[in-house]
């Protein structure tokens, strides 16, 4: 009875993973398919991976997506980390309001933030394009970085910083030599989250991209209606590979840093 129960439980877990991974497996499999239609698997080929590097539109969309993701992640990680520290340490007028405002991008439907940003860009006569895309991605990423950093910050004992001050280190030195290394796991996971959210964003980009600036998700969105060619599958498979490599290395670094802290 116990044993049968266990098999059923494992079966359920396997089913959930099948559901989560099935579309991805399909995507990867069809990136090696000779037929142009993503319907039946004819035979194995690397053709689409080669073709990918000739598809200028797709490569440009990919390049834009990477630029936006890198710039918006860098900016939002720096501002988000700073904000989390400032909001914890200092009191200032309107802090309560700021504390409430930063949750808004996390909780309201993305589409609402998208149209709100589009509206103010129009109000201020900003031309829609790479700049507005980057600005919008920064806008929705910062709150995720703040919450992520804040969660490590609240667990941090104030004795470390106190010790640094007692030893004569200034505020800035203490921050960079003591606080920052200790909250690094939160900074890294916040940054990773910002990066992946940016890479994948459809909704907000849809409203804040101009006619001349295409991102990869937007390009794929427009292709879905006419039919997706397997070179898109190939690009997505490559990106998946990169994501997995990045994720594995971050896990490795984090587990190292936990070990290191354990030794101190």
């Amino acid at each position, binding site marked *: 009875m116990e044993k049968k129960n*266990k098999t059923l439980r494992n079966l359920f877990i396997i089913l959930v993973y099948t559901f989560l991974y099935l579309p991805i497996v399909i995507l990867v499999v069809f990136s090696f398919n000779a037929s142009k239609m993503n319907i039946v698997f004819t035979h194995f080929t690397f053709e689409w991976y080669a073709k990918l590097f000739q598809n200028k539109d797709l490569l440009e969309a990919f390049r834009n997506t990477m630029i936006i993701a890198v710039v918006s992640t860098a900016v939002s990680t720096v501002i988000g980390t700073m904000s989390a520290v400032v909001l914890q340490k200092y009191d200032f007028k309107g802090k309560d309001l700021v504390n409430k405002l930063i949750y*808004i991008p996390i909780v309201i439907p993305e*589409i609402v*933030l998208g*149209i709100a940003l589009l509206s103010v860009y129009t109000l201020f006569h900003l031309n829609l394009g790479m700049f507005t895309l980057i600005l919008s991605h920064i806008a929705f990423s910062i709150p995720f970085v703040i919450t992520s950093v804040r969660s490590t910050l609240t667990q941090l004992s104030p004795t470390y910083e106190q010790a640094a001050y007692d030893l004569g280190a200034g505020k800035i030195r203490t921050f960079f030599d003591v606080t920052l290394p200790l909250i690094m796991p939160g900074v890294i996971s916040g940054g990773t989250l910002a990066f992946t959210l940016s890479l994948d964003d459809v909704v907000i980009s849809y409203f804040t991209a101009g006619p001349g600036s295409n991102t990869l998700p937007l390009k794929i969105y427009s292709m*879905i209606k006419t039919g997706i060619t397997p070179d898109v599958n190939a690009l997505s498979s490559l*990106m998946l590979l990169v994501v997995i490599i990045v994720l594995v290395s971050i896990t490795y670094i984090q587990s190292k840093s936990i070990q290191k802290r354990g030794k101190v």
Partner: protein
Amino acid sequence: MNRKKAFQIIVTLPVVVYSLLLILIPIVYVLFLSFLKSDSFGGIEYQFTLENYLMIFDIIYIKILLKSFIIGLLTTFICICISYPFSIFLMDKSETKRNLLIKLVMIPFLTNSLIRTYGWIVLLRKSGVVNTTLSSLNLIDKPLNLMYNNLGIIIGMVYTLLPFMILPVYSAVSKIDARVIDAAKDLGANKIKRFIHIIVPETLAGVFNGSLMVFIPAIGYFFISDILGGGKIMIVGNLIKNQFLTARNWPFGAAISIFLIVFTFLLIRIYKKIGGKLDELGGL
């Protein structure tokens, strides 16, 4: 002292500027827009009106709202039904295994969600993988209509949003003290009783957290209803999108957006009442 003050102002400035410029002003401007009249050329007339809000109660729009809410609720319900047993069953595993399995839940949604949604087209369409497999096994005579309908949308929504339910539910379930469950077992409580009297109350905030992170996007993700609903089915997300990009009635689109914001804030209030923390929302 002055230098200290100046330093404080400089480091505080970014977060203040950000939250005013990129959050407060845009939302307030949408609120302002929602009370303006639209002219027939897609422009705005600077004249106060409540018309946009009254228009939401038009039967066509009420139907779209209701449909979105039903799709959102069904998606949320299905996600809860998957996440509870999944999290509880996972507790049998060792901690290292569990951490790895939870990471595996996250990997799919680090890849492009559109391309994954497209993967569902390949699976679900009439000549798709599911239908061809079923008919080659002689289980069906005619291909099933698995997409371009409500079913397709719900499959797509559940798929895209499931990790947002699994993570908070799992984190709540894993915090339950195993001794409490053992004690209940010893006192003769069966599985169902243990679930209702221990697991549910202990995980309520986690489930509500997940429900918010599933339900709210589900009413706005226009791309899923576009792709898997075949463009025939409108949810609130499509409605807002159309008002801003095709119909070009910004004030009406703004009014629906404000309606959604107010609705979201109400849900957040409930979440806080039952002991949920804002910092845990969207924390992955």
